[in-house]
């Protein structure tokens, strides 16, 4: 099996996912009571930066099967946006508002982007670039 040299998208993507899940767990462990947003914002920022960094690194990789990546990512994005929306709905239903709602929404946004990137990368890495 021929392997192109690719950035560690799966490893970094999983770390990004772990950080965002940690942020949501931290928020969920305190809600509906008052929650200090600092740790969640730090985890969210680190997760978003990792995701952006690895996607940027992938953009700079020659010979990557982008057409396949986009084809898979858009359907996965649709599915995971729906899942994120369902989770957001539960928090909205329970009157989560203000800062916690904004941070949770951003966490779910990063979640809904990270999973499609992981799925699309795993498919596209074995596809022909043409």
């Amino acid at each position, binding site marked *: 099996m021929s392997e192109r040299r690719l950035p560690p998208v799966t490893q970094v993507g999983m770390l990004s996912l772990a950080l965002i899940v940690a942020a949501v767990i931290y928020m969920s462990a305190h809600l509906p009571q008052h929650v200090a947003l600092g740790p969640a914002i730090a985890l969210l920022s680190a997760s978003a930066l990792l995701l952006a960094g690895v996607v940027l690194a992938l953009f700079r990789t020659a010979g990557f099967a982008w057409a396949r990546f986009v084809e898979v990512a858009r359907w996965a994005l649709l599915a995971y946006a729906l899942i994120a929306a*369902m989770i957001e709905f539960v928090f909205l*239903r*329970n009157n989560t508002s203000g800062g916690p709602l904004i941070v949770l929404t951003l966490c779910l946004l990063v979640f809904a982007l990270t999973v499609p990137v992981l799925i699309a990368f795993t498919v596209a890495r074995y596809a022909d670039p043409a």
Partner: protein
Amino acid sequence: MASATVPSHAVAPGVSPPAIERPDFEIVPRRGLPIVAFVLVLLIVGISVNKIWPLMFLHVVGGAAWTVIDLFLGFVLGPIMGKLSIPARVEFTTRLMPKMVLIMPTVVTVTLAAGWQLSTHLGTNQTSYALHGWVVASFIVVGVMSVIALGLLEPANIAVLTELKKPQPNPAVIERLMKRFIYTAGATGLMQVATFVIMTKLATG
């Protein structure tokens, strides 16, 4: 039934590998989408009405399906799949995995969303709740399982099916991804034992 062939093992360039027939299949079975939509509508209704019985029903049924599927896949089907011949494994994979693409995300979403609403309704997600530590432990277990399932298992599942859709799938890629799928299914199956411990503790107080 066959619409394409899969080489039975990796071969040297220029040598035609013996071909294996594989069934035609959809990566995402469209016939299952209305069922998923129906379940998600049930979830929205259950959360909206905010009554204990529908929330308990959705959380328990979803959670039971999630744990049982993970355990069965990780400890029963996984080892069996590993020992099957390549043609049998290909046929089994093309029949099982497209269903998993729809079942698992739906079951997980229903369990988590209904579970959060239920815990809000019962007050078990309040920090003042006596077993709040156990509730947070369940969040952590689910979080770790989610990272494994979403980061490794689900991408491997989709990638295997995409590879099998190619006119000439690469058996080495399928082998590698199937191993990843089976090992991660085993890992999440093992973590489901922790879920059982926590949930029975929460149920009995």
